[in-house]
């Protein structure tokens, strides 16, 4: 442990017998001053913008509050309403979970497949990598969400191409209750670039001689994939799974733009975050929105917890058992 000047100066002084309270205070201040001065902006932000609001949010979730009249204590009413009476919330949960369960496995599969295609001895890896990553970078923007509305619109790119190749065109995908959510799943898959880059970095860590040894023993590529690549990549798969899932639960901009800001058509794209936003900032039910936020926190927590607990059985870390 390195000691800095202002610490060693104090250690000598510690020999002095029974300092008074003021001396102790002054000494403690000198020892900790620098640290707390550097930490000051974060401390203000932490208490004022994170911890304070988190506690306030928990409190508000037990109240009725519309910004105009003071918050009124409502006990468990918000949670009771959420669990037993709010059809729209269940709709929102169903939409969000459907989105997560379709988009994450597909996105990660595409990401892994392309990472493996790019892995070794491909010329121009950096160019491909940049091209495949670009949608991830641009995809969070309003512009791309607007573009998606047009691509899957009645006269959009997809229907034009269908007309050209198949001779007939489909419905207006974004305004059809059966397909609107799928367009958002496609948008999520389109952004497979960032998990792909993480997979690529993981693949580079796998020693090449493992494959050579396996090939000598007559293991076919498919077997090599399931016996070498996948087990050694498990920590990376786990990382991508957890973080992409959390991000998917938090998706907002795409849903807002593609659904016209209201989860249209007939709530088929009413993402959880979108519902929360509407409750808070369109209906001004701040108390209920806070309860929704806490339920989301719990849902994300449960999913992350399940992932961590299950990881014992399928994620193997090389430095285990040290």
């Amino acid at each position, binding site marked *: 442990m*390195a*000691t800095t000047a202002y*610490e060693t100066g104090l250690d000598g002084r510690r020999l002095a017998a029974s300092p008074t309270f003021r001396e102790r205070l002054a000494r403690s201040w000198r*020892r*900790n001053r*620098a*640290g707390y001065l550097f*930490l000051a*902006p*974060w*401390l*203000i932000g932490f208490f004022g*913008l994170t*911890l304070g*609001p988190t506690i306030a*949010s928990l409190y508000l979730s037990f109240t009725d509050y519309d910004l105009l009249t003071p918050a009124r204590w409502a006990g468990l009413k918000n949670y009771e309403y959420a669990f037993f009476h709010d059809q729209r919330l269940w709709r929102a949960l169903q939409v969000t979970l459907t989105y997560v369960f379709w988009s994450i496995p597909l996105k990660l599969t595409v990401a892994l*497949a*392309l990472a*493996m*295609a790019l892995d070794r001895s*491909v010329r121009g890896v950096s160019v*491909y*990598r*940049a091209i*495949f*990553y*670009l*949608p*991830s*970078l*641009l995809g969070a*923007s309003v*512009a791309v969400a*607007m*573009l998606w*509305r*047009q*691509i899957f619109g009645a*006269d*959009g*790119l997809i229907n*034009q191409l269908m007309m050209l190749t198949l001779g007939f065109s489909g419905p207006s995908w974004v305004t059809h209750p059966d397909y609107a959510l799928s367009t958002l799943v496609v948008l999520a898959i*389109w952004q497979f670039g960032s998990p792909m*880059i*993480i997979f*690529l*970095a993981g693949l580079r860590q796998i020693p090449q001689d493992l494959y050579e040894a396996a090939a000598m023993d007559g293991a076919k*590529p*498919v077997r*090599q994939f399931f016996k070498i*690549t996948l087990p050694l990549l498990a920590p*990376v798969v786990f990382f991508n799974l957890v973080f992409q899932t*959390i991000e998917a639960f938090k998706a*907002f901009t795409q849903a807002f*733009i593609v659904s016209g800001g209201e989860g249209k058509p007939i709530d088929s794209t009413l993402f959880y975050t979108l519902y929360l936003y509407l409750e*808070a900032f369109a209906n001004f039910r701040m108390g209920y929105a*806070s309860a*929704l*936020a806490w339920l989301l*926190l719990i849902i994300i927590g449960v999913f992350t917890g399940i992932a961590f607990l299950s990881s014992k059985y399928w994620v193997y870390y090389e430095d285990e058992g040290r």
Partner: protein
Amino acid sequence: MAFVSATKSTGRFTPLIRHGLLIAAAFVMLYPLLWMIGSSFKPESLIFSNPSALPTSFSFDNYIKGWNALRVSFTTFYKNSFIISALAVVGNLTACSLTAYAFARLEFRFKWFWFALMMGTLMLPYHVTLVPQYILFLNLGWVNTYLPLVVPKFLAVDSFFIFLMVQFFRGIPREIDEAAVMDGCGPWRIYWRIMLPLSTPVLATAAIFSFIWTYDDFLGPLIYLNDQRQWTVPLALRAFIDSSGGESLYGAMFAMSALSLVPVFAVFLAFQRLIIRGVALGALKR
């Protein structure tokens, strides 16, 4: 296709096939963007009848019309977006690096307690603080100003960047600042004269992602900026949906959407390596 890499049995044609497939995949990936750019130069009648990304004739009409399509021109929206993004970058860099320096190098009481709390906030979804923060800023009279979008950055609320910088600072050899202490440097000078100059890669990464995330941010401006003169570019783009209805704005919408991607794309071109490395570290999710 994916398994080929694992074996040595690559024939003469496999690389060709592989490149063929990769190029096809890249083309499919980019086509939506190319179509948007192409459409932005097409007359509106052709956007929805010709799926080609190549316009038959170039015309900047859509751009000219789009720039002034709303009551306030895009000059204002870009100015607002850049002001907010620049302040966010400055805020994140100063506040997060100060905090990270304290965690990485200084000794003080309860340091690990604060550090654990900071790491805890990494996982906290922003929805939990959304409503109370809004109420707070409303009561401070900050709604309809840039302050709710900028001040939190100066208070190191993006703990993710702190984490990134702590990791980097810890990698800088202790001997360097120990030598500086010998020479009589205090913590401030070590931070300013030694740590920051040695940390340009992580500072650049933080700056780049602060810029991109703030520039793209939609929810924040949506909640806090109501007056059209204060809108950012994403808010203005969204107005094209609200105000359309008539087909007549589609060309303009394509033009302004394409244009809005240019700053992020330019940053990507300029700092590609840093961005890809940042993502590869597993640090940046998007």
